[in-house]
């Protein structure tokens, strides 16, 4: 049963991603990406990580992508559609893709990262993964968590300063 859903979602991700890179219309591409995010959230649910699935939808699909759409809509999409879509970089892209595939192959062939194997929490078998996530974030990974939040704060202030400079004077 789970396997069926897994392949369903996986196929969805692949299809949506393909759509995303092939659509000439930027808005269509962005919407395909949203679709891919939703399928990914489905995979998270299958893995027992409901919280991550929620975050995936809330942040990526509901937040970031809306902002993307927001800025895309302000631009003239009609021009982009008529632009050339090929940049003669296919050789480079192919090389990069092959490299990535090789890396994935090697990692998965070894059965994942050693650190992940040594993980004490079994996702999906925890009493509730919100609690698990919370405990890990505030104990084991407190420092990276704080660093990330400081980074975000700096980015936010930077954005405000940049925007503000245009308004005054």
């Amino acid at each position: 049963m789970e396997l069926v859903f897994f392949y369903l979602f996986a196929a969805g991700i692949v299809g949506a991603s393909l759509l995303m890179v092939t659509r000439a219309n930027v808005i269509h591409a962005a919407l395909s990406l949203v679709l891919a995010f939703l399928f990914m959230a489905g995979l998270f649910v299958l893995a027992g990580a409901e919280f991550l699935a929620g975050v995936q939808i809330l942040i990526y699909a509901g937040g970031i992508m809306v902002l993307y759409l927001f800025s895309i809509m302000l631009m003239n999409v009609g021009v982009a559609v008529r632009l050339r879509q090929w940049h003669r970089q296919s050789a480079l892209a192919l090389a990069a893709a092959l490299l990535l595939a090789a890396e994935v192959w090697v990692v998965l062939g070894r059965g994942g990262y050693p650190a992940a194997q040594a993980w004490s929490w079994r996702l999906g078998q925890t009493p509730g993964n919100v609690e698990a996530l919370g405990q890990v974030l505030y104990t084991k990974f407190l420092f990276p968590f704080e660093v990330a939040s400081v980074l975000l704060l700096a980015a936010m202030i930077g954005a405000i300063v940049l925007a503000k400079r245009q308004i005054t004077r």
Partner: protein
Amino acid sequence: MFEVESSTRIERSSVMPGTEELIINMGPQHPSTHGVLRVILRLDGETVTDCDCDIGFLHRGTEKIGENITYTMFIPYTDRLDYIAAPSSNLAWVTAVEKLFGWEIPMRAHYIRSLVAEFSRISSHLLWLATHALDIGAMTVFLWCFREREMVLDLFETAFGARLTVNAFRLGGLFQDVPQKFLDLSQEFADLFPGRIGDYETLLTDNRIWLQRTRGIGVISADDAIDLSLTGPVLRGSGVRWDIRRAEPYAAYPYLDFVVPVGENGDVYDRYLVRIEEMRQSTRIIQQCLAQLPKGPVSCKVPRTIKPPAGEVYHSIENPKGEFGFYLVSDGSETPYRVRIRPPSFVNLGGLKKLVLGGLVADVVAIIGSIDIVLGECDR
């Protein structure tokens, strides 16, 4: 070197890269342009950078018509000018013609004219308040105002047989005396109406959202307002205490006691307050008219064929929207040689650009509402 240049370029351009100015057509079928007004707005984001009005959709050549029919025949045409306050337009026309002739009008006619003119002011202000509030999103006020306006229109029907284009007055006075029922109903309305104004004010005057949407919006100083020839509540909202009913009294206004309300800041809110207070004052005037109403004839002797002396007069009255005047040139024949309608909405609308520049689109709606235009008289 290059970096300095690029940063200055960012600072200079007020428009975000990749965005373009948006040109928006409001009207002529837009819900908040109050008739067939078309406003062309140039927007940067939601800020208005330019504004142009396209009017004339309702132009019927009323002035030309007036030059080719007799003085009496023109009265119904005035109904179609400011159709929201038709008796006011009638009054402007008959008083202007009477000034040309130099007739003495009986006191009773004067009082009834003032009475009906104040009813028309109330009806006009009610329609204004209704649509203005609806523009800003207050839906209930809209229907409440229409409830009272319905009563006023019923009153017109009782007295003159018509509700909107009432054709209320005749040269020399009135067509006939008003029925007693009209006076009774008027009294009833005048007793009831101040409470109803209180109801509207409960919903709006101290409402924080209403204050935020109207205070400091569409500000115009007294000097600018005068310079732009704005009249009526728009001018009074900027603090100029000028009301033709007081400055150059006509009809029964010399004998009536009322206050000319003025605003301080000249913003949308002050215009709102001025009009609300004017409704109260109108009710006071109605009470006084009913109490003082003298007996007697309602029309002076009017000759069968009306031929004024040659000459020119300008006479204006205080329409609900502003100074509503007629400039008449007579060549001594039965028809006027030139009829000029001085339209308050047209002139006040001319000041719109000054009011909306730099504001937001949402404010344009509020500002058009606060000018209170009626296109019938704007386009003529």
